[in-house]
């Protein structure tokens, strides 16, 4: 077991808190991409609190691992994680979406400490992650690049163009994590534009591919540690997740891709998430 009991307890509590924060910010901001933020919380919790080599006091630390949120509309989720991890004051979250705030729906890397690169247009993060991984090779650095992509996002040709390049250049310092929550805006991925057999596609594109429950911290931790041992090819952790995870009235409902929350609904959401 890669996680100690204490770690597991700590991360589970942390994930709940992050989910409650996402609900709060969605309420304050008038609207945010809540569904896809909730689905990736467990993944981000493990990365940001256990695996990423980062220094919140020095976001530009050269040796840091890079984290790229390719599905950049998860900005509210990412912002909550970055502030909780100490990259900026949590008070900033209250101004999410407001004019003059450093935080909007899609995080701006020039404004948000810890945000590695500006994303939000689908299919832009993975190509940049490939570039960062190649950069480490050129510079003889041993940083790793972690990149979270969406499943709907993987309709984009640029995702597969980047995948080809990652395999071609044997980027074993690149760990791609797919938030396979089965939904995009217009409905289930398999209704809108079918992706299956998705794991086979990644394998065919040259990725070492592991299928994981994206809400099971132990499985996730085990998979990430396995990823660190893979040589000469990029790795894909295909994470089965639930969009809106943790909030009973959102789970699996495509209508909660983006939305606002009244104070009453914020409370309902937080109750469902629990302490």
């Amino acid at each position, binding site marked *: 077991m890669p996680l100690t009991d204490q770690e597991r307890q700590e991360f589970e509590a942390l994930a709940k808190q992050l989910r409650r924060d996402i609900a709060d910010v969605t309420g304050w901001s008038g609207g945010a991409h809540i569904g896809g933020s909730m689905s990736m919380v467990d993944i981000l919790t493990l990365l940001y609190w256990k695996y990423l080599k980062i220094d919140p006091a020095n976001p530009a630390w050269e040796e840091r691992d890079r984290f790229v949120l390719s599905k950049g509309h998860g900005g509210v989720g990412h912002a909550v994680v970055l502030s909780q991890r100490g990259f900026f004051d949590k008070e900033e979250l209250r101004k999410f979406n407001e004019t003059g705030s450093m935080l*909007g729906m899609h995080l701006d890397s020039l404004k948000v400490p810890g945000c590695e690169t500006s994303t939000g247009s689908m299919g832009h993060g993975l190509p940049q992650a490939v570039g960062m991984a190649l950069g480490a090779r050129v510079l003889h650095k041993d940083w790793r690049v972690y990149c979270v992509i969406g499943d709907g996002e993987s309709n984009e040709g640029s995702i597969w163009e980047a995948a080809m390049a990652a395999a071609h250049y044997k980027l074993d310092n690149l760990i791609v994590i797919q938030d396979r929550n089965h939904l995009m805006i217009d409905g289930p991925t398999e209704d809108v534009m079918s992706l299956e057999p998705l794991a086979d596609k990644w394998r065919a594109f040259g990725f070492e591919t592991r299928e994981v429950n994206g809400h099971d911290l132990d499985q996730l931790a085990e998979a990430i540690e396995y990823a660190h041992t893979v040589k000469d090819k990029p790795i894909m952790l295909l994470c089965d997740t639930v969009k809106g995870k943790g909030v009973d009235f959102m789970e699996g409902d495509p209508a909660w891709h983006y939305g606002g929350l009244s104070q009453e609904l914020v409370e309902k959401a937080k109750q469902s998430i629990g302490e």
Partner: protein
Amino acid sequence: MAKTESTVTWTVYDADKMTQREIYGIVLKDLGAQYPEIVGLSADLAKSTKIGTFGDAYPDRFFNLGIAEQNLLGVAAGLAKAGLTPFVSTFSVFASARACEFLRTDICYQQLNVKVIATHGGISFGSGGATHHATEDYAVVRAFPHLTVVVPADAIETAKAVKACLDITGPVYIRIGRGFEPNINTSEDYDFEIGKAIEMREGTDLTIIAAGNTVFHAVQAADILKQDNDVSVRVLNMHTLKPLDEEAIMKAVTETRRIITVEDHNVINGLGTAVADVIAASGKGCAFTKLGVPDTFCPHGYPEDLMNLYNIDTDGIVAKVGELLNREFEEDEDWEDEV
């Protein structure tokens, strides 16, 4: 060719309760009943752009390509080649930038009959930030040969533009907003012709040329200036950026001698540049200035705040008119003869 008519018409009563996008969806659905050759396409934005209203009514004539905008425009080109009339909807930034070359080379180069209805134009997706703003689309698509470029002023005009674009055999790009923009027209009972500017207010001291959501603010500014300062401001709704109504521009040059353009777009290569080209080529003296987004990526924020920041709302226009009225410039010698 007979003008395309739809059985649905709009008044401000409906329009005030509906966004440009919603009205677009309903009009397209209605046109779909009359024109079996119309097909619809989107890229996981059927709901967001409202082309889904058409899609729900005609599931066999609607294709959701998933989040893949290059393929979206390419497939539309193929459907047009097959003899159909594709309507394509996604956000403006993706239609004009992500799928740019597919629009240019597949659709415009081959003069294909594809109608791109691009939503969330300009800075209308305020808090979405620069990744979701489209402040360069006029610049890009205006430069594509054969493409007609239309920017309706409001929801009612969107209905008219969507119908009118069917009278053109060839590619059309219609840019609309996110939908929370106020209406300026009160009913569909006015002449709308692609390529012909609409004089929203008569005036002799200065002309404001606006397009899209800035028309509302230009008209408000003109009314304020009339009332408070007795300044006579002409307002042109330049809903078609291409082909441009050069006649209306030259009439404004000779009759008012001062022109301000206002656009929800980068000041580079948009409406203002198009108007400036006409003025410069004419050789006439004219006090001229452009209001628009300066050459920058806009920050996150509420659209009304961003419009205020860049002086493309009523207040900004009023201030600019005051400034331009006092600007000295060299008049043409033969000017009096022309007026």
